[in-house]
């Protein structure tokens, strides 16, 4: 009997924790969204005879139990802490933190992916732009790994080879190397993106390369959003990182500009303040992902137009190019197939800039 008593405290402690976890799992109210992971969470699957007998119900239920696990973010942090600090692993879910910056392991270079991207852009050029537009430019936005990986012992993509593949695949485009105008501090610590207030050098380099009027460079007022920004890597790394501030640059020109979204048929301001309180506050820049946006500058000194084939990095860059153009058409071919672009754009004498990040070019299957 005495021996049995010895086991009671341990049994009650561990059993209580197990029971508490079980009760939390069963009775914790289901959440719809994960703000840290920026996605919808799986909901309880509807059980019916077909889904149960076919075996579909069980995997859906398992996904639901994991997604709806109580204190999910805290548990993910526990896992991240164990991974990094106990097991000494260098990345967690392919996200690593070095010099205070979270970045994604972007390795190795998928030459096929880059070549496929160049082929897609070339096909678009041949179909719509050859002989119709002004000059075509290409620029690649390096991801943070460019600055972090090799210096901190992480495998590093061959960025030089990436640029080589893109240049060889797009001989009609003039390549603009912006890496010399960027540093690690120009990026958010917890997000993939660069900071708009830090890329004026990049904007000016592009403006120079495209032969835009130097007088078109504007002076800006830097404003800070009143909410802390936790970027996409914050959620993916699941580590406690400090929130950052989103800053944006504005002036009279930009305040007069309008951004017309073809998909919704709505016009909006260049900076969509409502998005600061959304799942991804970075969408403050031109309201985030959109297939085609017309950014119109009524106060432009000329009627020059720019076609900007871009990814999300272009959202924060385009306003800094607006001074020199009456209209910038932003095209995101992740959201619109090349076959339909001609329905919305009249190709006639514009400058063309293909501006994509190394991460997109290395995973170009998302380009339609």
């Amino acid at each position, binding site marked *: 009997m005495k021996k049995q008593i010895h086991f009671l405290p341990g049994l009650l402690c561990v059993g209580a924790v197990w029971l508490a976890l079980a009760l939390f799992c069963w009775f914790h109210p289901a959440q719809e969204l994960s703000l840290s992971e920026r996605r919808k969470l799986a909901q309880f699957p509807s059980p019916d005879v077909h889904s149960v007998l076919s075996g579909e119900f069980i995997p859906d239920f398992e996904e639901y139990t994991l997604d709806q696990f109580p204190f999910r973010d805290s548990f993910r942090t*526990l896992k991240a802490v164990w991974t990094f600090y106990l*097991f*000494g692993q260098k*990345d967690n879910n392919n996200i690593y933190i070095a010099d205070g910056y979270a970045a994604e392991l972007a390795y*190795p270079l998928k030459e096929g992916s880059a070549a496929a991207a160049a082929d897609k852009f070339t096909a678009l050029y041949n179909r719509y732009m050859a002989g119709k537009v002004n000059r075509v430019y290409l620029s690649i936005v390096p991801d943070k790994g460019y600055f972090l990986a090799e210096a901190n012992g992480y495998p590093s993509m061959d960025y030089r080879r990436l640029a080589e593949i893109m240049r060889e695949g797009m001989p009609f485009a003039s390549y603009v190397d912006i890496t010399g105008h960027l540093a690690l501090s120009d990026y958010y610590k917890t997000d993939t993106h660069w900071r708009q207030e830090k890329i004026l050098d990049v904007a000016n380099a592009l403006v120079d390369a495209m032969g835009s009027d130097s007088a078109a460079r504007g002076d800006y007022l830097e404003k800070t959003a009143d909410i802390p920004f936790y970027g996409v890597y914050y959620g993916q790394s699941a580590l406690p990182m400090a929130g950052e501030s989103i800053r944006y640059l504005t002036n009279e020109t930009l305040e007069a500009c309008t951004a017309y979204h073809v998909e919704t048929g709505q016009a909006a301001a260049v900076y969509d303040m409502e998005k600061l309180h959304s799942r991804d506050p970075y969408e403050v820049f031109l309201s985030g992902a959109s297939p085609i946006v017309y950014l119109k500058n009524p106060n432009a000194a000329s009627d020059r137009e720019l076609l900007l084939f871009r990814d999300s990095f272009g959202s924060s860059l385009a306003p800094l190019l607006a001074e020199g153009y009456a209209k910038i058409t932003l095209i995101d071919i992740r959201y619109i197939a090349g076959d339909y672009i001609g329905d919305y754009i009249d190709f006639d004498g514009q400058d063309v800039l293909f501006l994509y990040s190394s991460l997109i070019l290395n995973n170009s299957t998302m380009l339609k």
Partner: protein
Amino acid sequence: MLLASLFFYTWGEPKYIILMLASILLGYGFGRLIQAFEKTMWAKVFLSLSIVSGLGLLGVFKYADFSIQTFNRLTGSQFPLLKIALPIGISFYTFQILSYTMDVYRGTVKAQKSPLKLATYVALFPQLIAGPIVRYADVAAQLDARESTPERLYTGLRRLILGLAKKVLLANTLGELCAVFRASGEKSVLFYWIYAVAFSLQIYFDFSGYSDMAIGMGRMFGFDFLENFNYPYISKSITEFWRRWHISLSSWFRDYLYIPLGGNRVSLPRWLLNIALVWALTGLWHGAAWNFALWGMCFAVLLIAEKLGLGALLKKLPPLVSHGYVLFFVVLSFVLFNASGLGGARQDLSAIFGLSGLPFSAEQTLYYLRSYALVLLAAMVGSTPLCRDALSRIRSSGRGERLIRMAEPPVLIVLLLTASAYLVDGSFNPFLYFRF
């Protein structure tokens, strides 16, 4: 217990619950008949029918397409595959039922009169889908009367959590390394060796972790399952390895196939055939592909060599050499085991010995070696009895025992929460052996 076990099985495999119940019913019926006609020719007939029906079902569901593919390859035919889904746990519960009817035939146990109790034995959820293969004799008494004490509950819970930690924290993490290796376009000889060691450790912690969970849960419910792993990686011979690895399976083949075939009490050629047959089947039990059969045959060759003199030599060699011999062949065998067929096995084994033109090392190799070094080290240490022995030494004093008693629950709670954290962060989490 039976209802819970059937619900558990139906939850994971709703279509084939009927198959398992049918197998149980056949086992029950044949067991009763064997006992009713004991010591007559009819007992042998019913035993044969039990074996044929059990292995027949296993053959259809697990080996039909393998047989068709092999026949097609050998003859150039193009018979279509049946594409029958493999029922979860069929290899385990079939062998349990067969061991039951064979034990009834041998008189080792009395036939169970209650179909519900026999069904409980076969379908017992802690060990149903991934073992250990429990002998009826080991749990017969407990089917009728079990006790649940604080000691059993706590020690069972402890074993369950430790098994969960082994599986989730170590096996799954090592599995990630293996997956990275497989997906890598920058393989090297060193990466192959890292993968081979990682997989050998992954499969050990996956399977032994699951066995710990089964044994722990069984203990909580009043059942005492036999140990299934006994630190196999400290073995000094392959013979010893197989007395420590998946003990319930190797002992099953020994007791129900090898010994009935005559074991080693036959002529030399017959003995060699017995070993070859047993190990080919042991390999095929793990998977319906020729690389599994080859895996089993490799062990047959080594076991024969050890019985013919190598074993005696190994005993004279320094332990480091004999350990090295075992680990070398076991690690290579798992490369064969995890290959995608014979072609994949040839490719992997060529590469691991530098015969594929791969560089010795590469940037990605060194990165993952640095990243997983601690995990690999922890796994290597954990695969030895070092921790167990250290705890035993601490426990040997009264003060040490009290210290362990106080420290153990918080450690178990941390492991439980961390394992939960890993599961939450991941997604689908299959046990490696659950499709056998």
